[in-house]
């Protein structure tokens, strides 16, 4: 049974349609990413399923039940920005959250240590840096050991070490059997951590499925694609001769040289010898699996939403 099922969810803000008939299901024990450019409706969607916002139309169910407050007590959520009482310490803020949930008060020292905030637990929230505020919010989601976690841009404000820690934390939580729903626009992170993904743009669901499916689907073809970076002394000439090579999906000039996308049956050796035959000696040949970023930009186009 799906952990979360969303049915034709629509949300209008006066004339702006933030969500347009979005439907999908989150399978249990997955790390489910919700990707989209800025303004695509990710936070609106999470706001609706957490009962912060009221939908204009449509419905959703957590674990088959029409959303109830008891259920929200079993979900650890971080939505948009950390919202805590400024004049209270980190510890006291967690105490209030635990009391509302009705459990987890004993977990407070443990979760603070997990996010490296234990030393500053008695400092007032308004003395925390942005990264510390974010980490307190993450600590709050862990109270009571919930089976479901919802993270909206969890790495916001964190330094690289923090980002890596959160990545490991999410993986560990998933290993423990928890379902994690994560909204993000940092595709690199999503690719490293998520098992499934839904891509949303301008409130419309563009695609949904496992990360593997999405990365290896090009339009309607079920073909695994490669992305190869090449470089030569004369990149212009290299681009011209590559455009003449058959079987390539695309040839593009970038800051790093030339990027080609081709199906897996074309090998780097083939590309290398083709260039050499045409009189161009490569000084760079770098094979990358087609990344989620490329697929994402293919699906959503290259412009951020307003």
């Amino acid at each position, binding site marked *: 049974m799906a952990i979360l099922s969303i049915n034709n969810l629509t949300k209008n803000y006066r004339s702006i349609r933030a969500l347009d008939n979005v439907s999908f299901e989150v399978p249990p024990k997955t790390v489910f990413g919700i990707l989209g450019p800025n303004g695509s409706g990710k936070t609106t969607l999470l706001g609706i399923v*957490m009962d912060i916002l*009221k939908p204009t139309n449509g419905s959703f169910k957590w674990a088959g039940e029409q959303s109830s407050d008891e259920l929200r007590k079993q979900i650890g959520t971080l*939505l948009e920005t950390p*919202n*805590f*009482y400024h004049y209270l310490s980190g510890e006291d803020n967690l105490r209030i959250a635990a009391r*509302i*949930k009705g459990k987890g008060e004993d977990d407070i020292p443990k979760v603070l240590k997990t996010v490296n905030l234990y030393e500053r637990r008695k400092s007032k929230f308004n003395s925390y840096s942005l990264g510390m505020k974010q980490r307190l919010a993450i600590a709050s989601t862990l109270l009571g050991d919930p089976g479901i976690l919802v993270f909206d841009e969890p790495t916001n404000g964190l330094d690289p070490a923090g980002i890596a820690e959160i990545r490991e934390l999410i993986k560990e939580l998933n290993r423990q059997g928890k379902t994690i729903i994560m909204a993000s626009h940092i595709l690199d992170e999503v690719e490293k951590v998520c098992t499934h993904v839904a891509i949303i743009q301008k409130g419309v669901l563009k695609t949904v499925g496992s990360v593997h499916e999405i990365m290896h689907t090009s339009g309607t073809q079920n073909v695994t694609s490669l992305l190869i970076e090449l470089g030569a002394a004369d990149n212009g000439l290299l681009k011209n001769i590559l455009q003449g090579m058959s079987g390539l999906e695309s040839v593009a000039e970038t800051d790093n040289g030339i990027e080609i996308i081709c199906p897996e049956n074309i090998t780097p050796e083939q590309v290398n010898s083709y260039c050499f035959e045409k009189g161009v000696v490569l000084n760079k040949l770098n094979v990358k699996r087609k990344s989620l970023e490329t697929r994402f930009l293919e699906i959503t186009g290259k412009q951020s939403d307003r």
Partner: protein
Amino acid sequence: MFNLFKIEWLKIKTYRTFWILFAGFLIFFPAGFYLMAYKYMERMSNAKSMEENLLKALLDAPFVFPKVWHAAAWTGGMFFVLMGMLFILLITNEVQYRTHRQNIIDGWSRMDFLKAKLSIMVFFVLVSTVLVFIMGLIVGSQFSPAGASMFDGVHFVGYFALMATVYLMLAFLVGILIKRTGLSIIIYFAIVCIVDNVLWLVFTLRDSQLGYYMPLEAVDSLVTNPFKPKIMERRTVADYTLIIAAGIYISAYVYIIINYFRKTDLKT
């Protein structure tokens, strides 16, 4: 609801602004009332009028039994505006800092949030009513001549509780709807000090008793200024009608608050 109150108490027990305003009321109302009583009674006893007049005035003085209950309730009402402001602050803070969202995300229902705030309101009404009663008792016992009927007129303490409830319910409504701290307080004061009195004036000048049924005027008229001579009193409608009106207003505020908060998006 007591569990909700305990969580609310966790929120405010270390909040300095809460203690400043709350202690302000707890200290300044009793101190102010006692001082007023002391000065008044001192002046009375120094008066050079005839003994009979003096006795008559003394028996009707606002600071002796039984009229002290009326005076305590009215004075409490004057200071109570501090509590109204405090209550607005507690509500608008939650909206400004978006902690009301966090409470819901963590598992409270919209009704839970409202009930939690209601529990604080009840706490304020109880504490201030008990204080009014205690002050009435202290001042009355201090300044009354022997034989004065002690608990005649104690119903004014009940009127105070009703007045406190109406004032805080209005603060609740203003805070929930307006959401911004500064603007809410300004609008609250505008209603309390200006709007309500203007409405009363408009009706009363037309020789209508309707002015006494205006939202705040209804409870204000139950506990009138004890220093104003009775002759100037223009109200002819009975007390119980005002109590019913107050009850209707409280129900209306509750209805609007619940309906609004249940359906709204929780944003700043």
